[in-house]
C-alpha cells in the first residue's frame, strides 16, 4: 500500500501542493528557531548570548512548534477530506480499511518528509538571518557562529511528521466511515483535552515571577490550545452564529446568501478546518503582539535597559513575533485556497441551476464574512485569555495599555485575507465554462 501511496503522490503532485507547502513552511519555522539551541550549545558562546538564544528558542520556538503542529494537521485534514470520493472508490474496488489507512497515512508521511527535507537548506539561511538580527541588536555577541545541528533537525522533522501522520490517521478514520452525521467522539475528547490543557497553561503563568523571561511561553501555549479547542467546537458554534447572522446575510447577499446559510449548516464540520487557521491567526497575532507591547512597556518602565537599547530590543521582539504571525497568515491563505479551489464542481452546479457568476461570488463572500466574524470573535477571545494571563502577572493591572489599534489591524488583515483569498480563488474557478467545471471533478 505504501507503493500505491508513493505512486499516487507522483501522479498528482498538484493535489499535494497545499500539504507539501504547509509541511515545508512549518519545518522551516521550527528549524530556524530551534537552530538557536544548537547555536547556543556551540563552543565559545558567552553566557549572556547563550541565554538570549535559549530563551528565544524555547519561548518562540516552543509555541511556534505547537502552532506548526496544528497548522500542518489542519491542512492535512482538509486534504484528506477532499479525497473522500477517491477513498470510497478504493473501498468499492476491494481495499480494506486498513489498506486505505496505510495508503493515506503513508502519503502524508512521504509528503511531510519531503517538505521537511526541502526546508533544511532554507532553514540554515533563516537561522543565520535570525542570529544576525540578535547580533545587530547587541543581544548576542558578534563572535557567535551560527550552527545548524541535531536539535533543529530532529525537532523540525519530528514535529512535521508527527503532525502529518496524526492528522492523516484521524482524518482517514473519519473519511472511511460511511455516515459522519454524529459529532465524533474523538473530536469532543480532543476539544475538551485542548480546553483543559489550555486553561492549565494559562493558570501556570501565575507560578512564574513577574519578570521571568519565559513568562510569555505558557500564555502563548494557552492561547494556542484554546484556539484549537474553539476550532474543534466550531461545529457547534457555527450553527448558532448562523442563526444570528442569517437575517443580515440573506438581506445583503440575496439568493447567494440563501445558499450560504444552507451550505454552511451542512458543511459545519469541513468549515471548522478552515476556522482553525483563522482562529489561530487571530488568537496568536492578538496575544503575541499585545504581550510584546506589555513586555516592552514593562522593560522601559523598569529602567534596566538604556532607552536606545530598549528600542532595538522592541524591534527585535516584534520581528520575531512577526515571523510567527506571518506564518499563521500564510497558512490561512493556503487552507482557504485549497478549500475554495476544490469547490469548482459545486460552483458549476450552482451556475447550471441558474446562478450568475456574481451570485456565486456573493455566496462565497457571504460565507467568508460569516467565517471571519466567527473566527475573529473566537480568536480574539482566546488571544484575550492569553493576554490577561500574561498581563496580570507581568504588571499590576489586568489589561494591556496598548489600545485597540493592534486588534483592529489584526481583524482587518484577517477579514481581508479570508474574503480576498476565497473570492479571488472562486473568481478564477468561474472562468471555466459551467459544463466543464461540473465534468472536471466528476
Amino acid at each position, binding site marked *: 500500500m505504501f507503493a500505491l501511496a508513493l505512486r499516487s503522490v507522483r501522479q498528482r503532485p498538484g493535489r499535494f501542493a497545499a500539504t507539501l507547502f504547509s509541511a515545508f513552511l512549518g519545518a522551516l519555522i521550527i528549524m530556524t528557531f530551534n537552530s538557536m539551541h544548537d547555536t547556543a550549545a556551540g563552543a565559545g558562546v558567552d553566557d549572556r548570548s547563550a541565554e538570549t538564544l535559549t530563551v528565544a528558542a524555547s519561548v518562540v520556538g516552543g509555541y511556534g512548534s505547537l502552532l506548526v503542529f496544528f497548522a500542518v494537521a489542519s491542512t492535512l485534514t482538509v486534504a484528506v477530506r477532499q479525497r473522500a470520493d477517491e477513498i470510497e472508490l478504493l473501498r468499492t474496488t476491494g481495499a480494506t480499511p486498513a489498506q486505505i489507512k496505510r495508503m493515506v497515512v503513508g502519503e502524508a508521511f512521504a509528503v511531510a518528509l519531503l517538505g521537511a527535507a526541502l526546508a533544511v537548506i532554507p532553514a540554515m539561511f533563516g537561522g543565520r538571518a535570525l542570529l544576525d538580527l540578535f547580533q545587530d541588536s547587541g543581544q548576542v555577541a558578534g563572535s557567535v557562529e551560527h550552527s545548524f545541528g541535531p536539535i533543529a533537525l530532529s525537532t523540525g522533522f519530528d514535529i512535521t511528521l508527527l503532525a502529518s501522520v496524526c492528522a492523516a490517521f484521524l482524518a482517514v478514520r473519519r473519511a472511511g466511515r460511511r455516515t459522519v452525521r454524529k459529532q465524533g467522539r474523538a473530536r469532543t475528547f480532543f476539544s475538551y483535552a485542548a480546553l483543559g490543557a489550555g486553561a492549565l497553561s494559562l493558570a501556570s503563568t501565575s507560578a512564574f515571577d513577574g519578570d521571568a523571561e519565559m513568562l510569555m511561553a505558557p500564555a502563548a501555549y494557552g492561547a494556542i490550545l484554546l484556539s484549537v479547542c474553539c476550532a474543534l467546537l466550531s461545529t457547534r458554534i457555527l450553527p448558532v452564529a448562523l442563526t444570528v447572522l442569517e437575517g443580515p446575510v440573506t438581506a445583503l447577499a440575496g439568493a447567494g446568501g440563501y445558499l450560504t446559510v444552507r451550505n454552511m449548516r451542512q458543511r459545519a464540520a469541513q468549515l471548522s478546518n478552515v476556522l482553525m487557521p483563522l482562529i489561530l491567526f487571530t488568537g496568536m497575532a492578538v496575544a503575541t503582539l499585545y504581550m510584546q507591547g506589555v513586555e516592552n512597556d514593562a522593560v522601559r518602565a523598569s529602567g534596566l535597559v538604556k532607552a536606545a537599547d530598549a528600542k532595538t530590543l522592541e524591534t527585535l521582539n516584534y520581528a520575531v513575533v512577526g515571523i510567527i504571525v506571518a506564518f499563521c497568515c500564510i497558512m490561512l491563505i493556503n487552507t482557504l485556497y485549497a478549500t475554495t479551489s476544490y469547490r469548482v464542481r459545486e460552483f458549476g452546479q450552482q*451556475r*447550471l441551476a441558474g446562478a450568475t457568476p456574481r451570485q456565486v461570488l456573493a455566496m462565497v463572500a457571504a460565507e467568508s464574512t460569516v467565517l471571519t466574524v466567527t473566527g475573529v470573535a473566537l480568536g480574539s477571545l482566546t488571544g484575550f485569555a492569553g493576554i490577561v494571563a500574561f498581563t496580570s502577572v507581568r504588571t499590576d493591572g489586568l489589561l494591556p495599555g496598548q489600545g485597540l489599534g493592534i486588534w483592529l489591524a489584526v481583524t482587518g488583515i484577517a477579514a481581508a485575507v479570508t474574503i480576498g483569498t476565497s473570492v479571488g480563488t472562486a473568481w478564477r474557478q468561474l472562468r471555466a465554462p459551467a459544463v466543464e467545471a461540473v465534468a472536471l471533478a466528476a
Partner: protein
Amino acid sequence: MFGRRDKAQRPSGRHSDEALRLVKVSKSYGEGESAVRALDGVSLSLPRGTFTAVMGPSGSGKTTLLQCAAGLERPDSGIVMVAGEEMSKGSEAELTKFRRRRIGFVFQQYNLLPTLTVAQNTILPLKLAGRRIDKAKARSVLEQVGLGGRLKHRPDELSGGQRQRVAIARALVTEPAVVFADEPTGALDIRSARDVLRLLQEAVRVHGRTVVMVTHDPVAASYADSVVFLADGRLAGHMQRPTVDAVAERLAHLGDDINGHDYAAQGV
C-alpha cells in the same frame, strides 16, 4: 402543476409556436490542424409541445448540439432562438438570465446541490432568479414526480432514479419554454429509466412542455414523438413516431447514410 397561471410573465412564446430554432449552427473545438468540427451548420426547428430525441454515434456532436441550443456553449456561428427570441450573445450573466426563464436542464449526473434538501433543490432556480416562491406549487411538482414524501431528504439519501426525478421537478418548476435532457437515463436501471422517461413524456403530453433529449439508447428514444439523427456534426435523418427497432436499425446504418445523402438539405 405546470399551469400557465402567470401568463404575463411567460417568455414571448406567444409570438410563435416554435419552441426552438437553430440556424446554421457551427462549433469547433481546438485550433489549427487538430481542430474538430463538432457541429457543422446544423439547422433545426422544433414546434412547441413536442418531445424530440437527438441520436447519433459517440462523437457525432449530439451533446454539443444540446449545449449550444441550451446556451451552455457558445456556437462559433449561427443563430439559436428559444421561444422566438434570439439567444443572448453577451456575458455569462446575461446568458444565465436568458436561460432562467426559457430553459430547464436535466443532466445524466443529476447535478443537484448536495447541501440542499429535495424541496430546496427544486425551488433553487426560482430563488436565484429572484422570483416569487410558490411553495404549494413546488410541492405539487414534487408530488407529480412521486417525491411528495421526501421533501426534506438530501440527494445522498435518494436513489439515482429519485435524484433524477428531483432534477426533472427542478427543470419544470420554472415553466421553461424548452427542457433539455442530456442522457437523463444514462446512469439509471431499466425501471427508474422508464419512470423518468414517462415523466418527460407526461410533461409534454399533459402539460404542453417542449423536451429535447440526447440519448444513445433506442429504448429511450422510442418514448419521444420524433427522433433527429446526427452524424459527424451534421443532421443525418429524421423519424416520426419512432419504435425501438426502427431506431436501432437506422442507427446501425447511419455510417452508410452520411456518404450517400444529405439530409440537412432536405430541410429537416
